[in-house]
């Protein structure tokens, strides 16, 4: 470390009233950082996908390989398995940052915490929810999902999993300070997942029966819009509570 006397810029001595620099820069940097971090710990990205694939494989083995029976329950099975897979990866959303001290740094930035948290959730969805949605049609073939409902399955999961990430992040933020928050997180979050599950699985059922798809997708979209507005604020408040404790 070099001696630094006189090396400090003149601006230091002046109190700044406003945060310097733009919010967009901070949000973009957080997005980029989290993407790089997750892509370097590839197992965390792959675990939910492998879990999803294995769970779906178990159903034909456990219930019956009869295509008619499987086709009837496929929408619900796919949705429940995807929901659990998304839940599996939620616990680590803020925990690594909490452990290494970068979460307290995040809370001390003059930028709005809700938007920075939203960036973190966006990365979670991009690397968990979206891959699950893209993978679901392939697993749908295994469950003899009727033709014509594959696209709706992917779209409903893409929309729904974004809501799941947002809602789940509130629980993750609340339990980040606890040593074993995983189970508590599931108990907190699963009841809140029910509306998304109803309309998500409903959309796929509607596609099979041939009407009302758009209505279900519209409600999923509305749920997402609501979650996008309210969840970031709740996540920010929850993080502050966790750090305070």
């Amino acid at each position, binding site marked *: *470390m070099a001696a630094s006397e006189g090396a400090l810029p003149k601006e230091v001595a002046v*109190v700044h009233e406003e945060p310097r*620099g733009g919010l967009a820069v901070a949000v973009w940097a957080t997005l980029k950082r989290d993407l790089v971090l997750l892509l*370097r710990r590839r197992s965390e990205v792959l675990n939910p996908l492998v879990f999803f694939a294995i769970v779906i494989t178990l159903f034909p083995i456990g219930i019956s390989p009869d295509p008619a029976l499987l086709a009837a329950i496929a929408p619900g099975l796919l949705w429940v398995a995807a929901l659990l897979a998304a839940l599996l990866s939620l616990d680590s959303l803020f925990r690594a940052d909490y452990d290494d001290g970068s979460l307290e740094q995040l809370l*001390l930035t003059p930028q709005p915490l809700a938007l920075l948290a939203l960036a973190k959730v966006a990365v979670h969805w991009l690397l968990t929810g979206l891959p699950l949605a893209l993978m679901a049609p392939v697993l749908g073939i295994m469950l003899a999902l009727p033709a014509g409902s594959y696209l709706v399955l992917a779209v409903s999961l893409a929309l729904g999993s974004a809501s799941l990430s947002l809602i789940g992040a509130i629980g993750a933020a609340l339990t980040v300070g606890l040593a074993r928050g995983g189970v508590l997180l599931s108990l907190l979050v699963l009841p809140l997942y029910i509306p998304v599950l109803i309309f998500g699985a409903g959309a796929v059922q509607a596609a099979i029966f041939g009407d009302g798809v758009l209505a279900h997708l519209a409600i999923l979209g509305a749920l997402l819009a609501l979650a996008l507005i309210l969840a970031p604020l709740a996540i920010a408040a929850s993080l502050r509570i966790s750090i305070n404790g």
Partner: protein
Amino acid sequence: MSLRLQARNLACERDDRWLFRGLDLDIRAGEIVRVEGPNGSGKTTLLKILSGQLADYEGELSWGGRPMREARESFLANLLYLGHSPGVKAALTPLENLAWYQALAGQPGGEAARFAALEEVGLAGFEDVPAAQLSAGQQRRVALARLALTPRLLWVLDEPFTAIDRDGVAALEQRLVGHARAGGGVLVTTHHGLTPCAELRRIRLGGGAHDGGI
């Protein structure tokens, strides 16, 4: 307006025990305030309260004469806090770590500024090594590079000397004094003996006594 962080009649209770009570504190430009006390005497808690992270305390905090509640945004825009954990991501390189802090602080200056800050803390040549492969002292140095990277008026440093070698300690001490002389303020806890100088003041915690002030 110059730097002024004030605390009046500050008290904090943990598990039915007063960590400190009736603590008055005044940090101005050009001062290094060292918080002393044995382990568990509430040094970290005090620093967290003063940096606006903990809300369960009694007493009043003010920044530049305004209550902290109103001045929080201005306060955060002038604060650099280094906690117990360095806040360095093990999977990222020092350069990537600093890039995030730079963007978060809204600090202009690109990669050149990051290289310069890392060189200043003796990490030249380690810019692209994942932090997981660095020693504890080197990781701490990555965090300390933020002092040069994002100039801030008030430094709140919790045990900044942890895991730093002797040369590094001397350089960091000089850096603190330099910051105070340039018109900044420093609030620091350390078990390491700081060389006495005109800018240094001490606050002692612990023993349940309320010995606020110098």
